[in-house]
């Protein structure tokens, strides 16, 4: 069993990074093409689940020492914070701001507060999925 695990674990690590990269891509694509924080977050967590399958829970939690509840809270705070920023400008809540830029290589891009909001969504989704899986997994 142990030797097999090593192969599995190594491949998993590779796949994990691929998944993470892909999920980040999906996340950023969201505003213009299908994707977004939600799907991105789910993909990331499935990557972590893969790690969980290959290693045991303890190893993963030392590899990724993350308190997922806090992650959820921070995600929510980011999302709320983005939306609430508009309160300080006395415009309706959730008013976003964006600007188009033309960058070398990447062409026309935009910088958008909505992306920040989506990042909050991303964090919450990862946090939630991992919390659920972790708590069920820890329970014997």
């Amino acid at each position, binding site marked *: 069993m142990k030797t097999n695990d090593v192969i599995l674990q190594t491949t998993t690590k590779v796949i994990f990074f691929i998944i993470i990269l892909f999920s980040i891509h999906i996340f950023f694509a969201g505003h213009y093409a299908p994707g977004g924080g939600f799907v991105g977050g789910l993909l990331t967590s499935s990557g972590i689940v893969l790690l969980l399958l290959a290693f045991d829970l303890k190893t993963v939690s030392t590899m990724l020492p993350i308190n997922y*509840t806090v992650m959820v*809270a921070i995600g*929510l*705070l980011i999302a*709320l914070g983005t939306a*609430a920023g508009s309160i300080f400008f006395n415009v*309706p809540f959730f*008013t976003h701001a964006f600007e188009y830029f033309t960058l070398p290589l990447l062409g026309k891009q935009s910088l958008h507060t909505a992306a920040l909001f989506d990042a909050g969504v991303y964090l919450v989704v990862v946090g939630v999925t991992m919390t659920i899986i972790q708590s069920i997994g820890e329970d014997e």
Partner: protein
Amino acid sequence: MINLLLFPILLPFFFAMILLLFPKKLFLQRTISIVALALTAVFTIILMLKVKSDGIQAITLGSWPAPFGISMVSDMLSVLLVLSSTIIAIFVVWYSFSSIGKERESFFYYPGILFMLTGVNGAFTTGDIFNMFVFFEVLLMSSYLLIVLGGEKVQLRESIKYILVNVISSALFVITVAYLYSVVGTLNMADISVKIAQIDQPGIITVIAVLFLVVFGLKGAIFPLFFWLPSSYAAPPIPVLALFGALLTKVGVYAIMRTYTLFFTLDQGFTHELLMVLSILTIVAGCIGALAYFDVKKIIIYNIIIAVGVILFGASQMTETALMGSVFYLIHDILIKGALFLLIGVIIAITGTSNLRKMGGLIKTYPMLGWTYLIAAFGLAGIPPLSGFVGKLLIVQGGFEAGNLWGSIFILASSLVVLLSVMRIFIYAFWGEPVQVIKLDSIQYRNLFTPAAILVGFSVIYGVGSEWLVPYMSDAAEVLYNPSTYIKAVLGGA
């Protein structure tokens, strides 16, 4: 501060997130939640005064024009409901300090309450029908959390039923919104009202009206959709029960009142007649249950159902008097139900049982508790000058004005059953031969009794000081009776 009306939603929301960061620090959990609620109350009062002076507050989020973004609307009705919900939450949290237990407190109990308040306040404030669904889900999900928290056998068993019913009602909510969207192509509530008026409420809209009644009726526990409520509500600990009993059904009632005064006003001969018949049957069902059980929790729980019937009866009359009565009664019921649940919580803590037949003679050892309970009971039954009276009087009057003689007389007669059911608690628990009681230590007793008593005090002030409330109540009823101001505030112009 054009975002002021969002504060009652965002403040508890924000603080709930903060609380997630350190779940085990109980002192901070308690302090922050009380501070959060107090802040919320302060901002709600500011908002209420603003609504009073400047009229309906409305904002469409994201700076989009009205039907396209999500509109939030604070009219007098919703701000009053938000205020009373916040007040109830404060007292429930205070009561929880010495009753809910450290274990629950360190597993997101306070964030759960704050999130629930977020959902409740959001549902009262939103001006978008799909957003209302989302807020419903927030408050439901927090209620799932709270009802099951602790994982006792009864809780698990009853949570399953509770969640199942709510999953069904949520699915129905979604499909009903979808039907409505198919016909009128919009989600903004003011806009829906305009569109329905344009197409003169064809039959399909009436069908959708009935579906909405069903959806909100499931939440509000009207006949014949109330069956799930009694045993589910009896499962969680008292503070949670108080919160549920005071607030959750009221959200359903509010939604019925809102949709039936804003959307479906053109076929009242059918829709409102149906609402009236169902509300009367609701009262009957509640009365039967309130008399059938010798369990203090059950008695008050069934009284929730009776009150829902009374409020909706008023709403179905569509006269200005009756609507004002309904608003009066709605707020009264939030306060008095909260108070009563906390009081019977004290009784249960003292006697160690909720079975009336095992109680007796408490008036000798706990006289203040007895008198406070009696006042609350009379308030519930609508004895003047306590809080239930003015609302009931106006509902009855409005019913007569609308020509529903029997209905109004029936409402009056139902007060007798309410009185009988709550007096039974008084007679069995406080009178009679004293039975062995658990000796509560006096500090704990005081900590439990004080919030309950103050809440009863609030309800007394609510009744005696009705004069100060009338301007607010009549503003609230005015919007229901004549929703054009609501539409104007959201869509502007027109």
